[in-house]
């Protein structure tokens, strides 16, 4: 049974200096407000560098679970609040200790007194509260070096907060505080993780996906819709997904008879299309899920030749990460299970037997100039792009239209 009545949210002040502070704080508040909408009982207020959420009967676990995924928060703590008076603090500290599923063998008190007119010093309080706890738990011992549990008391003028958990939150910047970028979303494991990391750094995203029906299936597209949908969970705001018809370009590239350059040519065409879409939506960068050396198109040589097709900054959050680190994050953010569904996307189609790992820019440009009407096809792909908006609550993947009555 939880006895917590309030949750403290910390957004660390390193990122909060200067003129940006107000803007960041407002973004943060907006995010918290979005999330708390599903818990109507709760109330919140902010103080310097912190936010407080009063539960008012809302379940503590789910609220913490949701809040700790918000970008821009460093940590969260469920706390018991008490009157800033010795007896109330002692009583609250004791009831917190008694509520634990398994009482610790050792502990340590850490009292902080932000309200300087409180009559006892932090040191005195450590003893006054600690002794009270020890009397009630005869087995318990103090260990200031490696305590099993650190019981913290934060004395503010309006209330004292008693807690022992400091749960790490997502970190980063509040969503949308660093501008907008276009995410190339393939349906694999990497690109949703890249998207999540970009969002964590305060980027608002639109996503672009290339499909090559009949070479790819409806399911491959559904998978991408599901992944984009999942990303909106973290931003709490709708996201636009651009679905680009890529069949003609892919067929033309395959017909150019440069098998080892297929991937290079394809990736360059994708970047050119993504850049045009980014220009249209006012996005200032392209985010990809590339990781150095992972596949032929992600060697330094390949990235050099591919990257030159675009002039916007290419943001590659995963570039120096190992595959297992990426998978770990994918599992954590809930995209892994969807990503590994076995549907071909257009990157795995037409996969050459020996793709070039070190393409020559001049040769690539020559081949491109020999593909009839490549620029025209790129224009038409941009024009033919279908856009859907995914909202965090409504699951677009599950909207089956006329079939609503069945449910």
């Amino acid at each position, binding site marked *: 049974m939880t006895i917590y009545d309030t949750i403290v949210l910390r957004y660390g002040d390193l990122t909060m200096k200067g003129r940006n502070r107000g803007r960041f704080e407002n973004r943060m508040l907006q995010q918290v407000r979005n999330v708390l909408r599903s818990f109507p009982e709760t109330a919140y207020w902010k103080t310097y560098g912190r936010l407080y959420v009063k539960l008012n009967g809302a*379940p503590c676990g789910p609220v913490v679970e949701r809040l700790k995924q918000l970008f821009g928060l460093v940590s969260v703590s469920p706390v018991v609040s008490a009157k800033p008076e010795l007896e109330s603090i002692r009583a609250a500290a004791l009831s917190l200790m008694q509520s634990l*599923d398994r009482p610790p063998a050792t502990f340590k008190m850490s009292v902080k007194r932000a309200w300087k007119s409180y009559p006892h010093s932090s040191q005195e309080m450590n003893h006054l509260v600690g002794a009270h706890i020890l009397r009630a738990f005869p087995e318990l011992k103090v260990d200031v070096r490696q305590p099993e549990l650190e019981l913290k008391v934060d004395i503010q003028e309006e209330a004292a907060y008693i807690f022992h958990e400091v749960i790490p939150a997502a970190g980063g910047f509040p969503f949308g505080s660093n501008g907008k970028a276009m995410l190339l979303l393939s349906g694999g494991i990497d690109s949703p993780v890249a998207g999540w990391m970009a969002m964590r750094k305060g980027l608002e995203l639109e996503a672009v996906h290339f499909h090559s029906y009949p070479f790819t299936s409806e*399911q491959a597209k*559904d998978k991408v819709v599901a992944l984009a949908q999942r990303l909106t969970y973290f931003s709490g705001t709708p996201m636009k997904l651009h679905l680009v018809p890529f069949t003609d370009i892919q067929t033309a590239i395959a017909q150019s008879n440069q098998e080892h350059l297929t991937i290079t040519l394809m990736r360059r065409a994708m970047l050119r299309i993504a850049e045009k879409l980014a220009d249209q939506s006012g996005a200032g960068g392209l985010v990809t899920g590339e990781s150095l050396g992972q596949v032929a198109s992600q060697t330094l040589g390949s990235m050099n030749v591919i990257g030159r097709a675009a002039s916007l900054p290419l943001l590659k959050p995963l570039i120096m990460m190992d595959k297992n680190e990426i998978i770990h994050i994918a599992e954590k953010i809930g995209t892994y299970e969807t990503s590994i569904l076995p549907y071909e996307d257009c990157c795995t189609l037409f996969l050459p037997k020996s793709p070039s790992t070190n393409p020559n820019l001049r040769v690539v440009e020559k081949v491109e100039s020999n593909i009839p009407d490549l620029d025209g096809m790129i224009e038409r792909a941009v024009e033919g792009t279908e856009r859907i908006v995914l909202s965090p609550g409504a*699951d677009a*993947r*599950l909207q*089956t239209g006329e079939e609503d009555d*069945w*449910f």
Partner: protein
Amino acid sequence: MIYFDHCASTPPYEEVAATMAEVMLRHYANPSSLHGEGAAAAKLIERARTQLARLTGTKEGSWRFTSGGTESNNLALKGAARQYRSRGSHIISTGIEHASVHEPLKQLEAEGFRVTRLPVGPSGHIDPDDVRAAMTKDTILVSVMHVNNEIGTVQPVREIGEMLKAYPKTLFHVDAVQSLGKLPIDIEGWGIDLLSGSAHKLRGPRGAGFLYVRDHVRLQPLASGGSQEGGVRAGTENVPAIVASAKAVRLAMEGMERRSAAMSGLAERLRRFIGGVPELRLNGGPPLAPHIVHFSYPGAKPEVFLHMLEERGIIASTKSACSSKEDKPSRVLLELGASPEHAAGGIRISFGEEHGEEHVAKLEEAILEAVSRLKSLERSPT
């Protein structure tokens, strides 16, 4: 006819039957097929799964569709026990579980698992402290039913779940076949890892059940031969029944409180009435499910009582439908400490939302009549 056998099966909602028929005719494609028709069918299953998660406040993707409550219980118990055998081989359950828990546990015993079956007190409840006392470092699974299918007692699953939070390697299974849609259940909040439900107990279609499987809990499949349902249940999905059961669960959850309160009122009235008939004995003490009243006429064959009610157009049942053809005293009543004579004479009345005071009044008349007919047949003691 007045149908008082909702514990055995329920009259389906008309909307549910309509969904069954429409989906069956329209979406016959195999959900695993790669064409668009297959994808459309698969989408319906995922939508049903999401609906179930939202209605129960659980994580999306955590439900598996099965063929019914019996399969859900079998899959949960055998699937979990066999999967986590390397952690230990001890299982804790109760003496009053439904046959679909009772029998699989016997099978697991034959495979070398050790099963502790906790006794219930005379009111028909287990004590959470007994679960705690039975825990060993070898305990991998605790399985407790939420509402007993025969006498309607509500087991303290919330308290047990809270207690088990301190035992991270022990899984907690709840057979909620009789409680889903009748009583509130906070599956994740109470620390439940596996929870079984059945669609036809809440006015959904037969042949459709569901099993909640907490994130990261793995189960060994009972049937192999396909990767459907996250690899725990091979076989082409029953799309119409899955969609229709998602609808039935929604209808059951909407207005659950109001319906349960109404049924509780009727059950209370009936219990007061039976309490006033000296020949009859009520079984089970509070807390009781809102829709079940169980009583005995010690010494009388329950079938005779049942047939007398049926002559008056009233449908009731003896013990659990799944074991009612066995001519033995009720295992559950024996567990409560009833004499074999008393345990053989159980009658179960289970309500649905279509019942009102007038139906209970008719039932009361019929019970009185049956009692007086039976009484006149008793040999007076010499």
